[in-house]
């Protein structure tokens, strides 16, 4: 549910490097006027037709489609022991993946064989982490890795962390096995790329809860299912980014190789792959991050590790313990992120460094390897090096502090927060939601298509029409519109934060350094951790879901806008300053207009990220599609409806993505 990725293959982002030429003002005015006309017509018709043909469906009601999906689900469950597809297909896949996971777990996290402890104890893992980080990246991140892993132990969460790490490593390994070849293929062939892209969109937008239950049907409960769920979710970034990497190798280089008589195979292995290595490693980084984001969700089907601690703490509303485990996930994410990022830049760093260093590198690496092996041996043999010493008191202190902060906030802020909630809900959310849910479905559909055509052109209009049609077919149209209203309101708030913080960070390097770690943490911290405090502050309402979505989506928008503001040429800003513009004028008249394509991209990503939180919202009172998905996961007879609701979320995502991307292309052309 939590995506830590920015689509780099995105047309909007590649364009933001070049400042968009000024758009003809006449056309822009006319375009927004057309949108205004559409809205006015919508409002008038809404006033007349209110409450008719709204396609609403009560929480327990089903359509034929939902019942049919239930039947499919049931027949799979009933026949799983006689179906050859199971006996020779899924069962075999499960066996392989299960063995892989169990192998890694035996190595670092679970008691293996007759041993009461895993094969490699904490000292060995810390040593290996440090050594590998140093070998693939540099000594600075190696220190970070050692410190980070040690901190996990001090938190009293060593075994949980290692379980999470085993699952993450297994999932990333399996994901890369498929993702890299697919990515290379999609990079080489435009057609392959076009075939793969919709599937990737689907894999990333479909709420995980929707396929978690069927996965256990196919691959049983536990490690294998959890790994496969993680793979489905985490593979797309690696595919997209490696395709992008191959495609962005300069054509002249490939031609030069071809003219020297290289075969296709040779040019792939000797030219394309080596030249795109750096970007491919970036893709691996994104896959690792996405896999970690799945930790808490996978715990719902008994995946071992930190996610389990978070989910269990949530049951008894134990914010402190949940935060402690969430923090461990953040720490692990930061370590893995910095190591892989540094690894992608290492080749260049090494080339720039002087010769003597290179000469010493080999013996040093060998010496380091010996040290790591000795540490592994020690941790295999001796209890003190195998079992993390201490009682994890750091963890309980962290938990206590988090509890205190939460209690303080709940006691002192709830008056304030309730006022804010009511203002936004009554002033913005309710009118908008009423407009969407109480208008006849065909009116909303027509308005959406009209807006899509005006903003994004005919193609976006056709996509929207198809999406509207399919949304109606899912049978959850009304819930879809409720979710749409919350999503749009959340995105508006995300953009407000994005502009405020993005401009601040884009203009000041100091601000950037101060804020960025918080943004990283907000993206990786499992949402389950902050649900309880938010519930206390805002109650079980749609607004709580909106706030949770903002915490997750705002960092992306802020980062993209900050980037956009920073790339406005300094010369332009200086010119504006010399003509006597004050700071406010520079921001509003120069920097923001010139970063327009970054703003559109931020809106696009903000919306997609908000949509990925819809299911989490369903857990805290947002109702609508999010609740349908959660209910489908919990109750057999609602399974089909949950699946349909998941599809509806994907459709909303595709619709928005296509409209905003087409609009971005138009504004920057």
């Amino acid at each position, binding site marked *: 549910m939590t995506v830590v990725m920015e689509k780099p293959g995105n047309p909007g982002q590649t364009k933001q490097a070049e400042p968009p030429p000024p758009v003809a003002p006449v056309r822009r005015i006319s375009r927004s006027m057309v949108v205004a006309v559409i809205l006015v017509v919508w409002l008038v018709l809404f006033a007349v037709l209110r409450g008719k043909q709204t396609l609403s469906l009560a929480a327990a009601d089903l359509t034929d489609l939902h019942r049919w999906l239930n039947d499919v689900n049931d027949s799979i*469950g009933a026949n799983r022991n006689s179906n050859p597809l199971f006996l020779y297909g899924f069962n075999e896949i499960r066996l392989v993946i299960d063995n892989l996971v169990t192998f890694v777990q035996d190595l670092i996290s679970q008691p293996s064989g007759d041993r009461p402890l895993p094969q490699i104890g904490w000292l060995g893992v810390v040593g290996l982490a440090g050594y590998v980080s140093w070998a693939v990246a540099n000594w600075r991140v190696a220190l970070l890795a050692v410190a980070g892993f040690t901190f996990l132990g001090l938190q009293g969460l060593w075994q949980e962390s290692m379980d999470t790490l085993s699952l993450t490593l297994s999932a990333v390994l399996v994901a890369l096995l498929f993702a890299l070849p697919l990515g290379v293929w999609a990079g080489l062939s435009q057609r392959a790329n076009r075939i793969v892209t919709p599937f990737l969109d689907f894999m990333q937008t479909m709420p995980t809860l929707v396929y978690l239950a069927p996965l256990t049907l196919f691959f049983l*409960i536990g490690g294998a299912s959890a790994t496969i769920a993680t793979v489905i979710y985490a593979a797309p970034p690696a595919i997209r980014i490696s395709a992008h990497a191959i495609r962005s190798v300069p054509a002249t280089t490939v031609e030069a190789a071809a003219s020297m008589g290289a075969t296709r195979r040779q040019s792939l292995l000797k030219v394309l792959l080596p030249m795109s290595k750096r970007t491919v490693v970036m893709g691996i980084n994104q896959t690792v991050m996405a896999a970690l984001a799945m930790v808490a969700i996978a715990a719902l089907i008994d995946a071992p590790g930190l996610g389990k601690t978070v*989910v269990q703490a949530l049951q008894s509303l134990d914010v402190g313990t949940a935060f402690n485990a969430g923090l461990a996930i953040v720490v692990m994410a930061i370590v893995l992120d910095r190591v892989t990022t540094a690894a992608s830049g290492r080749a260049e760093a090494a080339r720039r460094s002087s010769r003597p260093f290179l000469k010493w590198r080999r013996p040093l690496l060998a010496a380091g390897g010996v040290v790591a092996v000795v540490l592994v041996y020690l941790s295999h043999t001796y209890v003190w090096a195998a079992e993390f010493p201490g009682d994890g008191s750091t963890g309980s202190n962290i938990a206590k502090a988090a509890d205190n902060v939460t209690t303080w906030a709940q006691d002192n802020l709830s008056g304030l927060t309730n006022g804010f909630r009511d203002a936004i809900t009554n002033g913005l959310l309710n009118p908008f939601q009423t407009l969407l849910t109480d208008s006849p479905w065909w009116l909303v559909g027509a308005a959406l298509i009209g807006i899509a055509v005006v903003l994004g052109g005919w193609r976006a209009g056709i996509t929207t029409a198809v999406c509207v049609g399919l949304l109606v077919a899912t049978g959850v149209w009304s819930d879809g519109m409720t979710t749409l209203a919350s999503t749009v309101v959340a995105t508006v708030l995300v953009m407000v934060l994005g502009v405020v913080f993005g401009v601040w960070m884009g203009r000041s390097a100091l601000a950037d350094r101060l804020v960025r770690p918080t943004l990283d943490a907000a993206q990786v911290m499992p949402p389950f951790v902050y649900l309880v405090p938010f519930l206390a502050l805002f109650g079980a309402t749609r607004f709580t879901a909106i706030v949770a979505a903002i915490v997750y989506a705002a960092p992306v928008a802020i980062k993209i806008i900050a980037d956009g503001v920073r790339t406005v040429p300094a010369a332009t800003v200086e010119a504006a300053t010399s003509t006597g513009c004050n700071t406010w004028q520079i921001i509003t008249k120069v920097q923001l207009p010139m970063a327009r394509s970054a703003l559109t991209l931020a809106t696009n990503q903000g919306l997609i990220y908000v949509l990925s939180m819809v299911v989490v919202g369903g857990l805290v009172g947002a*109702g609508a599609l999010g609740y349908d998905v959660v209910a489908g996961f919990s*109750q057999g007879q609602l399974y089909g409806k949950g699946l349909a609701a998941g599809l509806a979320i994907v459709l909303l995502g595709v619709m928005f993505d296509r409209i905003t991307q087409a609009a971005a292309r138009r504004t920057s052309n």
Partner: protein
Amino acid sequence: MARHWRAGAAGLAVLGLTLTACGGAKVGDSSEAGGSGSSGKCGTFNLAVNPWVGYEADAAVVAYVAEHDLKCKVTKKDLKEEIAWQGFGTGEVDAVLENWGHDDLKKKYITQQKTAVEAGSTGNKGIIGWYVPPWLAKAHPDITDWKNLNKYAAKFKTSESGGKGQLLDGDPSYVTNDEALVKNLKLDFKVVYAGSETALIQAYRNAEKNKQWVIGYFYEPQWFLSEVPLVKVDLPAYKSGCDADAAKVACDYPVYDLDKIVSAKFAKSASPAYDLVKKFNWTNDDQNTVAKYIAVDKMTPEAAAKKWVDANRDKVDAWVK
């Protein structure tokens, strides 16, 4: 030359570590009692743990007794009901310890697929209904009669209830007729789905603390009731069969006799763990005690189970004999 020096230092450090390590205890050579001595008779016992604390209490105690008295190897699996039942057929789950009605699942897995069988009552009485925070029941004693609910409906309005009173429902896996009840009892309320037990409990906790108006779905036995003793609202009394048609329900929920479900394979396995599950029986108070140890006193499930088992040896002896 600095590199030379660094490698040397690292080597020395390792040597030092190795030397100090010589005196340390080795992995696996501890002669501690009970460690890996799993007597083969019981084998592995796969216990599903559904996500609420009361169930966790059941599971903690059964697992503790199975491990310590019967020397089983217990594997706890954290799963929602639907998925836990799915596990009966695949051999991944041996037992579910606290089933709330769920006639749909019984039909599917016991009658149709024949992968599960019933294993008798837990002794717990499951009570479902509408509850209000204690301060509210005290300030307006007549609120506990459903006939007076419309009088107060306006007080229960929230930003989510569209002008009507709000009736808060929780996790979607709960057994609920609330939408039909509101309609058939002609109440001026709207059912709002909080979506999780966490959200529901937090709502009641806030309501009691800040004297807010909240009415919603809740159930016993539940650890939270030992923190905030919610008061049940009387709906028209339950009569056998009054809930036969889900759309026409206008009566209170029945008292559920919570029961245990085991996989058909496990029932035939002659495992002592199966006998334990079959005989396992305790009261709501027992469960609430252990649940409170876990949720309020923040003990680990093992520690909580040990505390209760040590204090109630006689009850446990009746299960394992």
